[in-house]
């Protein structure tokens, strides 16, 4: 009798794991799915064998065929539903397959309900963490067990031989998401099994609540004794800890005789009108509910006059040039490149004046980042009027109220129903920086073109309803600020004992005719991160969204209310149908409505926010990561084993270039400028070589930097195609020529063929170039000096040797782009020696 309930719990494991809300998604999800499906199939063995209705089964197929567009977790639902329909059709010939068809249908319906619950949690759960009084209550329970425990501001502290253990109890520790999934999965089961639906639903809710409390107590005791906070969030721990509830549910909400099958039966075929009514109503309900999350007023574009406030911030300066003369922290935590990049698309200006109505009236978007000074009351009032009149306000905060920035920003943000929290975020499972991935569907316009985005430690933000969840970070560990530490980061580095789950990392609110966007991590737009994938897209998406005036009132709340009313009407209408028909029809109708809403939402975003065209072109250098063996902090921060080239990448910006990191060579060749291959680890195919030759011949540049971290043979074909070759690495260090003579290179590779560019000590020819059409190919055999291990970090105060490495980088980039470079003038026209191959 417990099997269907066990199946519901196991399938909740799938929903939990794939959502990534607590632990990050893992391949273990398939185990939960397989185990849950098998349990469900095994529970379907004792059903009456009434013939299924072919027409009713066919109704399921359109919904199933359309839903792959909805995202991963809905795809599975649709596939299972489609499979159930197909097996159901086969039952006419092989009646024994009926258990399989109904088992698949049941699994599909449970998964669909759980997916809806998970989506609801994603929409609302990012702000549902805190439970007043839970921390003192938890500490009191631990004290009853003899542990030395107490609570401070919502944090439970347990002191003992294991050290001082901390955790912040919340809805996530209580298991809100798995509880919601289990409850949602129970709905289709209760609907089709037996009578007294309301009574059994109430019993189910009561049992789940009591069980959650008992489970929580058990977990905090386990935590208190062992200090392992993972008991609260690892998917295995969560699912296993909820399995016993299946036994309880089987007793308090027994699944009596099956009132109907999970598939439409021939004996119970409804009339065409009720059938259409229920399906149509279900489609409307799901359309409205999904639309409440995704349908938004795209707004009326404005003139794109963007103002940066320089008066209130002494951090992330826009006026400190990022050039080849100044180095150190003030040039790295610096917004020079952000300002420059936005200026390619919008009309930018700065102000040191107090913010006033007159000043703001001349601008469409105002950017306030990490203020280090408070705003005057008159300025706050002017800001409020600015937004009410249709202005866009971009608030950029950072972790832990650093420099008091959170407090100063909140003086502004709270006027618009937003509050930056004084905390910091880490990836829950690794303790490292968190990687944000925009949702597959219903992405906010600000992030609709955002690739995977690496945060650099944000804070979280809270917003009053109605708000727009621009970026919801999942599987986060959120720790409070520690004012006793540098920059107020928590002591002992990232830990796992903070608040856990999903949190808002960017939120927006509409206020009057204007918009406010709160973003929580100023560091990602610093010069050293600015041109890594995701950052330019987010900056442009943010300004583009803010550069609009609202035309319509807020749509989310009315659509949601209307959707809920329609859903209620659907359920009432479905009571007139035989139960075997009602659920498949609701499922099919919901699928169609959902798809329509998502398609409309995403299409409207795509139409209203086309890619921006720059006002003036940029000179670009494309880093090919498909063949290069270098590391850039795109998906994670660099580790000690990585061949880190972040400094080289960032330094290209010092001579006015815009670097891009591309996963495919093809994308590098799509534009103009310079293509860079460094430490190649993968050979180019003949088609790629041909495309590269065309690119160079068309005026592009190619810079190949060979170092000891690349594979020796990976560049052979590439060099050969341009009449060049690289020899064996030198055994002794090579001293580079003037003006780079402070640079000694270990294991430099001689370059044969082409024209001489760099000749080191002992006449070793470590750089050469060839011209082809309008472009140049430059090859250097001492690329190892350009790793961060040699160049230093992006905030380095460089040594004289490092300065000469930088000068060499600038010279090579300029030369590759076709410029005349004085350092190479003497060697440019030297005769080329005969081509030698290795």
């Amino acid at each position: 009798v417990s099997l269907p309930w066990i199946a519901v719990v196991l399938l909740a494991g799938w929903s939990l794991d794939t959502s990534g809300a607590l632990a990050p998604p893992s391949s273990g999800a398939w185990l939960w799915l397989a185990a849950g499906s098998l349990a469900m199939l095994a529970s379907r063995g004792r059903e009456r064998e009434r013939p299924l209705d072919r027409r009713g089964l066919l109704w399921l197929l359109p919904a199933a065929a359309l839903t792959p567009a909805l995202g991963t977790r809905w795809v599975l639902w649709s596939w299972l539903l489609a499979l159930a329909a197909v097996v159901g059709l086969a039952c006419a010939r092989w009646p024994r397959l009926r258990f399989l068809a109904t088992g698949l249908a049941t699994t599909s319906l449970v998964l669909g309900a759980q997916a809806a619950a998970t989506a609801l949690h994603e929409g609302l759960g990012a702000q549902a963490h805190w439970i007043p009084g839970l921390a003192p209550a938890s500490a009191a329970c631990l004290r009853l067990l003899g542990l030395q425990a107490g609570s401070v501001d919502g944090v439970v502290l347990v002191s003992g031989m294991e050290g001082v253990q901390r955790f912040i109890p919340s809805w996530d520790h209580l298991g809100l998401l798995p509880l919601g999934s289990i409850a949602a999965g129970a709905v289709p089961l209760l609907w089709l099994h037996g009578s007294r639906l309301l009574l059994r639903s109430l019993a189910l809710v009561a049992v789940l609540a009591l069980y959650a409390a008992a489970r929580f107590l058990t977990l905090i005791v386990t935590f208190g004794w062992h200090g392992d906070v993972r008991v609260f969030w690892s998917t295995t721990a969560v699912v296993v800890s909820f399995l016993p509830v299946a036994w309880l549910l089987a007793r308090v909400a027994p699944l009596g005789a099956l009132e109907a099958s999970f598939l439409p039966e021939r004996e119970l075929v409804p009339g065409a009108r009720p059938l259409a009514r229920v399906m149509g109503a279900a489609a409307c309900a799901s359309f409205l509910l999904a639309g409440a999350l995704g349908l938004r007023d795209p707004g009326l574009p404005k003139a794109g006059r963007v103002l940066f406030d320089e008066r209130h911030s002494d951090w992330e300066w826009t006026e400190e040039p990022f050039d080849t003369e100044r180095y150190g922290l003030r040039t790295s935590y610096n917004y020079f490149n952000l300002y420059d990049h936005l200026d390619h698309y919008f009309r930018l200006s700065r102000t040191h004046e107090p913010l006033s109505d007159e000043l703001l009236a001349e601008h469409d978007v105002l950017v306030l980042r990490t203020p280090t000074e408070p705003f005057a009351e008159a300025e706050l009032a002017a800001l409020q009027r600015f937004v009410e009149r249709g202005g866009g306000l971009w608030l950029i905060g950072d972790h832990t109220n650093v420099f008091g920035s959170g407090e100063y920003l909140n003086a502004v943000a709270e006027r618009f129903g937003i509050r930056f929290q004084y905390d910091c975020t880490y990836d829950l499972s690794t303790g490292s920086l968190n990687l944000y991935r925009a949702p597959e569907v219903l992405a906010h316009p600000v992030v609709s073109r955002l690739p995977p985005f690496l945060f650099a430690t944000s804070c979280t933000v809270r917003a009053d309803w109605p708000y727009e969840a621009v970026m919801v970070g999942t599987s986060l560990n959120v720790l409070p600020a520690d004012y006793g530490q540098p920059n107020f980061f928590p002591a002992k580095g990232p830990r796992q004992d903070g608040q856990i789950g999903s949190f808002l990392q960017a939120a927006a609110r509409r206020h009057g005719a204007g918009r406010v966007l709160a973003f929580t991590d100023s560091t990602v737009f610093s010069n050293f991160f600015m041109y890594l994938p995701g950052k330019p897209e987010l900056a442009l998406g943010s300004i583009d969204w803010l550069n609009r005036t609202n035309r319509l009132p807020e749509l989310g709340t009315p659509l949601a209310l209307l959707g809920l009313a329609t859903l209620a009407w659907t359920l009432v209408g479905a009571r007139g149908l035989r139960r075997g028909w009602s659920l498949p029809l609701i499922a099919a109708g919901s699928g169609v409505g959902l798809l329509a809403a998502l398609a409309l939402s995403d299409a409207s975003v795509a139409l209203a926010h086309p890619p921006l065209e720059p006002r003036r072109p940029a000179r670009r250098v494309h880093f090919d990561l498909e063949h290069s063996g270098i590391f850039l902090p795109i998906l994670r921060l660099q580790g000690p084993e990585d061949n880190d080239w972040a400094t080289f990448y960032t330094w290209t910006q010092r001579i006015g270039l815009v670097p891009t990191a591309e996963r495919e060579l093809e994308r590098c060749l799509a534009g103009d400028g310079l293509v860079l291959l460094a430490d190649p680890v993968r050979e180019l195919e003949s088609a790629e070589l041909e495309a590269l030759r065309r690119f160079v011949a068309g005026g592009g540049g190619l810079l190949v930097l060979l170092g000891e971290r690349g594979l020796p043979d990976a560049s052979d074909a590439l060099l050969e195609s341009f009449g060049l070759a690289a020899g064996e690495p030198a055994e002794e260090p090579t001293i580079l020529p003037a003006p780079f003579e402070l640079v000694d290179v270990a294991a430099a590779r001689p370059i044969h063929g082409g024209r001489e560019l760099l000749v080191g000590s002992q006449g070793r020819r470590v750089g050469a170039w060839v011209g082809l059409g309008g472009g140049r190919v430059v090859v250097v055999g001492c690329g190892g000096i350009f790793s961060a291990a040699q160049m230093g970090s992006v905030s380095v105060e460089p040594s004289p040797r490092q300065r000469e490495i930088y000068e060499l980088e600038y010279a090579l980039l300029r030369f590759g782009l076709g410029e005349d470079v004085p350092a190479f003038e003497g060697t440019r026209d030297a005769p080329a020696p005969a081509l030698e191959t290795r």
Partner: protein
Amino acid sequence: LVLGDHTGMGGIREPFNELLQPVGVELEFDSAKPVSDTWRDGLVLFPSRIALGMSGGEPIPLGVGASLRVRAPARVVLAGVPAFADRGDEEQSERGFLGDFRHEPGEPLGDLALAASARVGAGRVLVFGDTSPFQNGSLGEGPLFVDNCLRWLTGDERVAGLRARAARIASALVLLAALCFGLARARILALTVLALLPWTASRPWDAGEPLDRELPGAWSPAVVDSGHGQAFDGMWWRDDSIGGLHQNLLRNGLWVDTTREAARRLGEGGLLVMLPPTVRLSRSELEELEGFVRGGGVLLATVGADAGEAALELVRWFGFEVAPSPLGPAQCDALGGRMELVSAYPVAGAPAGFVSMARVFDQDVAGWARLGRGALVLIADSRFLLNPNLEGGEAHVVENVEFLRSLVELLREEDLL
């Protein structure tokens, strides 16, 4: 009381073994090591008078010592479980003959005897393979254990033993009666067993009063309260702990004890150190504390605004108010020297007669005030007395060590200690 040490350091093993031969205890040529990193979870204290009041996991500060070979009439008092005996290395005289601290084939692995006791005529013998529990730095960490050892060596255990025996016999009789009566009535049997459980779990040999101490004239009593959820580590020398505080109080002539039962010690007067409580003190506890201070005691509280409501309520009871504006880490002048604060907050309100000791950004962050015959000292930095800011196993903050010394001197000059 025989305190040995690992391997045969200093040539102690042979004379000790000769001495202990009649009682059946022998020091091995090895170093007893826990299988895990520390002895934290690897010690078993066998029921005896020495285990008095130690069922709650009170620390036994053991280091590296020899394991014991024990035979009758001696019995094992303390065992390492699981542990291994790392064989000594005769060629490593400069390293005290220590081995490689790794378990090698042939080395005993499992339960190792670490302390043993025996009775010889009317006297008693207690043998340790390690001196650590009795070293200065350990006295604050495991005072109860040391107290119990000395008490057993010097005292009379007949009463406690009889009490324990009587309790066991009574339990057994009740259980037997219930069995006879309840065999046919399962519920009665179950209820009886349940009713007896707390009695048996309470371990009757734990009953008894702690040792009453009389401190030598130059010493003042000091108690660190750990009974209100104070967040510090029981391993003493970690960053979250207060080994340094103990060390410094001892240095300054304060005989310190950390206990959950601080209230029972208030009658002794002296110094009571309250790190931020995370559990609210009841009204009666606050009144008791006030009585302690008014009666001549000194309450030293380290409470910043980040310490939570329970701690803030404590200082408010005495008329102090700590403002929630973080002043961060700071250095400042204090009591004629310097002071380093970790996470300071301003003292925004204080009782009459408040004397400031330190100021940061023109705001008081530490001070004291007389109350009755005693005084209250407030340092508005919750972490000021933890090891990293005072004294750890390998480093210390000399300014704060000196500050604490000056503070004790000041309290003595004011006849408060």
